[in-house]
Structure formats: structure tokens, C-alpha cells
């Protein structure tokens, strides 16, 4: 479980996060949603230590990440898998080398053991046989799937996904969403997904935290989100004509 308490973060005079708290449980897909500039990516970066919050704590199963020294942080980071918005695959490495990279760095497995793990991860994201391709040879959806494969290579306890559907067509987006949900349930990972994709919200949002102007405005599940009367949340959820029409119909 990941628990954040009273997170504050500002850049110069701009207060981006204004005291956000919440719990993200394992085995379910936790979503952080909000409009552009609401602070969701900043919150994610505070949680994984790429930004340092001015105030507040981030606890990984009781271990306060903000209070740990570098070595202790590295130990927690070995338990973290991360899917970046742009996939962040290493351009100079093949798909196989990308996925094998954390295994090379942190395990003493033999080459065949590592290769088995790579093939297992690739199979898990339906990319078997793509080992020798370079990132430049992959489509956007394939890059995301390789990103997921790399993220799960070390059997992470915590999985973070930053806008996993950005730039993908609706069909591929659903594939990625379902993959994240399956992996979360199968390995009981604590998964936190930052998104503003309403298909993801309605499809996989077991727990949803809605941010608006750097504050937590609402939390609940995808079953509850359509029933709220919070104006800011409704403005966000039903911003598209499709969602508005769906709401009017039902």
C-alpha cells in the first residue's frame, strides 16, 4: 500500500500541490485524474521521488520515502515499475536489451534465466518474438507494451503509469488499460495510473482520486463517479459530447 499525507509542492510562486492525502491499495487499479495543470503528474513525480515535496510524506508500506537516505531509496526503487508517457525506452537498445536491463543491473541470474524472464514479459504483453527490434521500429502501442514489459521485469510491488493512453487510438488504449488491470490483479501490485482518459476512468478505475487546482476534490470508484454532484468533477467527466450524451441518455 502507498499512503500519501499532506503533500505540498510548488515551483517558484506557483503552488502546484496544496496538501494532498490519500491511500492507494494493492490489487486494484488506482487512478489519479484531473485536467491539464491540476497537478497529477507532479503528484506522481513526488511519489516516485523525481520531485521532492516541500511538505508531507509518501509511505511505501510504512516506509516514508521522503525521509530515506539515497541507498534506502534505491532499495525501494528496485520495487517500483514505471510506464512513462513517452515509454522512455532506451533508443540504443533492442526490445530484449531494454527489458533485460534492470535484470542485468540488479540480479545475478544467468543469461538463459534472464532471457526466459524477458520472453515471459514479452509474452505477457503479447509481443512475443519482437526481441530484436529497436524502439524506432515499434508503433506507439507496441512501445507502451514494451514499457510495461520492462516495468514488470523485476516483479515490482508498485507500478506507476503516467498517461499510458496518450497518443494511442481508442482500441489500443483499451488493450493497454486491460493489460494494466490484469497485471495489477494477477501480481497484487499497488498500481497508480495518472490519466485524463475517460475510457480508462470508466473501464479500470477501481479507486479514483480527482485533482483540481492542486487539491483533492473527490475520491471514489468508477461506479460512483457519474453520480456525484461536484461541479468541478462533472465539468471534467462530462466535458466531451459523447460522455454528456451518455449521461443524458441514462
Amino acid at each position, binding site marked *: 500500500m502507498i499512503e500519501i499525507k499532506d503533500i505540498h509542492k510548488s515551483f517558484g510562486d506557483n503552488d502546484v500541490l496544496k496538501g494532498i492525502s490519500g491511500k492507494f491499495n494493492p490489487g486494484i487499479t488506482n487512478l489519479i485524474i484531473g485536467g491539464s495543470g491540476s497537478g497529477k503528474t507532479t503528484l506522481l513525480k513526488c511519489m516516485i*521521488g523525481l520531485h521532492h515535496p516541500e511538505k508531507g510524506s509518501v509511505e511505501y508500506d510504512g516506509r516514508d520515502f521522503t525521509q530515506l537516505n539515497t541507498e534506502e*531509496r534505491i532499495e525501494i*526503487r528496485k520495487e517500483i515499475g*514505471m510506464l*512513462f508517457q513517452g515509454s522512455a525506452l*532506451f*533508443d540504443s537498445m533492442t526490445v530484449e536489451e531494454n527489458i533485460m536491463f534492470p535484470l542485468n*543491473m*540488479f540480479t545475478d541470474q544467468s543469461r538463459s534465466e534472464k532471457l526466459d524472464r524477458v520472453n515471459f514479459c514479452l509474452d505477457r504483453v503479447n509481443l512475443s518474438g519482437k526481441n530484436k527490434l529497436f524502439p524506432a521500429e515499434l508503433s506507439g502501442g507496441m512501445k507502451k507494451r514494451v514499457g510495461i514489459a520492462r516495468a514488470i521485469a523485476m516483479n515490482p510491488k508498485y507500478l506507476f503509469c503516467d498517461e499510458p493512453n496518450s497518443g494511442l487510438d481508442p482500441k489500443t488504449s483499451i488493450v493497454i488499460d486491460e493489460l494494466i488491470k490484469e497485471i495489477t490483479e494477477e501480481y497484487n501490485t499497488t498500481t497508480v495510473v495518472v490519466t485524463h482518459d475517460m475510457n480508462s476512468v470508466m473501464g479500470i478505475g477501481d479507486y479514483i482520486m480527482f485533482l483540481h487546482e492542486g487539491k483533492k476534490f473527490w475520491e471514489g470508484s468508477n461506479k460512483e463517479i457519474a453520480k456525484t454532484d461536484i461541479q468541478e468533477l462533472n465539468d471534467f467527466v462530462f466535458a466531451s459530447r459523447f460522455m454528456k450524451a451518455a449521461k443524458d441518455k441514462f
Partner: protein
Amino acid sequence: MNFTNFGRYILLLKAAFKRPEKWKIYMKAIFQQMEFIGVGSLGLISIISTFIGAVMTLQIAFQLVSDFIPKTIIGSVNRDSSILELSPTISAIVLAGKIGSAISSEIGTMRVTEQIDALEIMGINAPGYLIMPKILAGITMVPVLVIISMVLSITGGYLGGTISGAVSPAEYIQGITTDFNPFTIAVALVKAFVFGFIITSVPAYEGFYVKGGALEVAQASTRAVVVSCISILACDYIVTQLML
């Protein structure tokens, strides 16, 4: 570099030289960088050094027209100029352009495409993995390239001088073998070591702290070459002053 940048540069170097997570992987990266910096620059350095040596001989011969000055001086001047100044400094400036811009844009692109963030999230010391192999490769391969450059520059001088008739082969060889001071080689190698460090560490710093996109990566690359060249010339003066 202002003081803030210099401080961040020192802190980055400190982070880069932390104990590696796995030496085997770092060694592989070091050899890859050695190949890129050393073998990859060999052709360019060879061509430049040979022509500079040839041109130097012609220009020295053009200036030394007095009957009181023996022509063997042409070889001596060319030898000392090549060893002490031309081979280390010209090679370093050329390498700053070729290697420095490549290092800066490689690391800068990794920064803006979140690849460096990905390394850090994995628990890998990104400065160590990305920068340390480049610096170690630079401080080993640049001296090797400078030695090759010295040999080719002197050889180029021989070819240029003898083909043009500015100096006879015997006079040139007598010139380069007379009053040779081996300490000049040591000075050149110290310079090459320092320049190798600058050529790799300054562009790595510029690339590592890029913010933005493609435009900023390009700007960082340009800045890396400019700062490297100025640093090379400043250190050239300092090393010369200290050692000669």
C-alpha cells in the same frame, strides 16, 4: 559557467564517480565509449594532423629564408610545435566539436524523453551509468589520439616539405632528431588528459540538465562545444604555464 553552474558541475561529477551498481555493465559501456571516442575519431584526427603538419612545414620554410638559419630548424620547429601545441590543442578542439556535441545531444535527448528518469526510477545512478564511462574513455583515448596525431603531424611535415622541395628528407630528419626533449611529450600527454576530461564532462553536464525539447537539446549542444573550447584553451595556458 557561473558559480551556480560550476557547483552543479562538481556535484554531477561527484555523483558520476559513485561506486557502480555492477562493474561488468559499466566496463562494457566504457569499452563502447572508447571505441566511439578513439576508433570513431581516428580518421578525422589522422587527416587533420597530416595536413596541419604539411602546412606547418611549408609555412616555417616560407618564414625562414635567411642563409644564417639551417634548414634543419624546419624539422625541429615542426616537431616541437606539433608535440607541444598543435596535436593536443587542435585535436582537442576538433574532438570537442565531434564528440562533445554527440555526448551533449545524446544525454540531452535522453533527458527530454524521460530515459534518464527511467534509469533513476529503476534505482540506477544515472550520472554514473551515463557519464562516468564517457569520462574514463575520454581521458584514456584522447591521449592515444594525441600521440597518433603527433606522429602523423611530423610525418605530414616530412611529406609536405619533401614533395614541395622546401626541405630535403635528410635535413628534415636531422631536424626532428636534434635536441629532442622527451619532457615535451609528457607536457602534451598531461594536456591531452585534461582535454579528454573537459571534452567529455562539460558536454555531459550540459546535456544532463537540459529542460525542454529539441530546441533546448540543440542549444545545449552548441553551448557544450563553446564552453569546452574555451575551457580547453584556458587549461592549455594553465598547463603550459605550470609545466614549462
